[in-house]
């Protein structure tokens, strides 16, 4: 597949790694923000190939993982309502709420429909005029414009039985929170490439300057990530702290203006609670006044619930990059993908799930019992 396979090319990957080995002299601590990037790194053992003691800290870039428990509970409540169809992405189906998850609700007879594209919720609403259809829209800035289209289409077509339960988060405020924390160890950042296709690169340029931290907008394939790491290492070795764009084939400085226009017509910025991080100011999206009629929480009068996470779950530490899954006492025993205690174990790109699937057999401190790719 063009523009995908080339970035999994072995020769290119190895040559990038060789470049890294020739320039890196210190144990730099880098963070990749996006869960998809974490997934690639862990799955292919790339983070374990880094020279000079360099370390990848995994960031909070998993919108599924950071969706507050209350929202999951609200989705479950809506799915259990009579005459209601809850439409959701596959990723959310197994995320644990306080007591249940959407898949279990479906098993018990709730009408929960899994979709790949938000447009399908519009179709479902049109096909079921006598039922309420709620679209559970989750995601970062990448997904928000597509989710916004649901409300936009509903308004344009005058669809009365469609509403949205939204949990959107914006990346830059969360990154800023991490960088400004006194516990922060991260010296260089790989910014989420697909978010930037929509939002452009400006926010990361600002952050790089403000916190004197090099930030590289990175892609998701092994060669992309390795190139981004090389670019960060080069900056760190040279004492620079700029924003650079590794993912130039897909990311423009101005992003996708049309998508942003639509996004900010339907949504507006608000404060948002991130599961595991707590409240982050101006880091979320909610329906704007003009579109508030499509807000499922308002339409169905869902009260605010406050929920405690299971005490053993250290997802807060994981999402801030302050701990690795192996350090969690429940990892792989009481907390597994089949019976997760927190979202990072369930989400397909959650850090804990990635470690469980690809690293479970590693030693306690992360050293691998099977040495990965040592031919390099």
């Amino acid at each position, binding site marked *: 597949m063009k523009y995908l396979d080339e970035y999994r090319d072995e020769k290119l990957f190895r040559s990038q790694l060789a470049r890294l080995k020739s320039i890196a002299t210190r144990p730099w601590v880098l963070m990749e923000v996006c869960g998809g990037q974490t997934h690639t790194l862990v799955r292919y053992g790339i983070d374990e190939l880094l020279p000079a003691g360099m370390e990848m800290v995994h960031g909070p870039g998993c919108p599924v993982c950071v969706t507050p428990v209350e929202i999951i509970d609200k989705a479950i409540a809506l799915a259990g309502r009579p005459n209601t169809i809850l439409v959701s992405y596959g990723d959310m189906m197994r995320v644990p709420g306080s007591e249940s998850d959407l898949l279990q609700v479906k098993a018990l007879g709730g009408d929960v429909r899994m979709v790949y594209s*938000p447009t399908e919720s519009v179709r479902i609403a049109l096909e079921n005029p006598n039922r309420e259809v709620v679209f559970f829209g989750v995601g970062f800035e990448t*997904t928000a414009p597509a989710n916004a289209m649901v409300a936009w289409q509903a308004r344009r077509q005058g669809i009365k039985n469609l509403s949205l339960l939204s949990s959107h988060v914006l990346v830059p405020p969360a990154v800023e929170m991490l960088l400004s924390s006194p516990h922060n160890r991260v010296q260089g950042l790989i910014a989420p490439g697909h978010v930037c296709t929509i939002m452009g690169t400006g926010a990361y340029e600002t952050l790089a300057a403000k916190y004197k931290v090099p930030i590289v907008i990175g892609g998701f394939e092994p060669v992309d990530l390795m190139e981004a790491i090389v670019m960060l290492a080069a900056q760190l070795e040279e004492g620079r702290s700029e924003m650079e764009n590794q993912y130039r084939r897909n990311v423009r400085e101005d992003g996708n203006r049309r998508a942003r226009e639509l996004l900010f017509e339907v949504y507006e910025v608000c404060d948002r609670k991130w599961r595991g991080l707590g409240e982050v100011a101006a880091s979320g999206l909610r329906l704007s006044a003009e579109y508030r009629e499509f807000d499922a929480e308002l339409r169905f009068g869902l009260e605010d619930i406050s929920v405690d996470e299971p005490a053993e779950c250290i997802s807060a530490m994981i999402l801030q990059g302050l701990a690795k899954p192996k350090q969690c006492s429940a990892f792989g025993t009481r907390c597994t993908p089949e019976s997760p205690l927190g979202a990072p174990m369930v989400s397909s790109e959650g850090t804990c799930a990635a470690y469980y699937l690809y690293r479970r057999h590693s030693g306690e401190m992360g050293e691998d019992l*099977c040495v990965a790719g040592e031919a390099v």
Partner: protein
Amino acid sequence: MCLSVPGKLLERNDVGGVLVGKVQFGGIVREVCLDLLPEAKAGEYLLVHVGYAISLVDEEEARKSYEYMELAGMLEGELTAFPDDGPALVVEASPPRDDFAPRGPRGESQ
């Protein structure tokens, strides 16, 4: 995150006021909504997320970046040969795994 895949736009149509394109991904074709990228033209490569085209692949930029990467790699002079086909690398001695049993539904050994 934001699983997005590049595909080639084969054709585009207006379907009831919505711009819909047929995009090829490897051996399959799927309909993609072009409302977020209305300027996309047949023959171009698009980045697709949740059934929407969100960005145009800049083919010229891709070519340049790629060539740069290849060149940089060669200048380093460290392009290594492919490993031989054959048995896996011999790994360091490690504690034998003591649980070979298949896992049950709750992750427990059976």
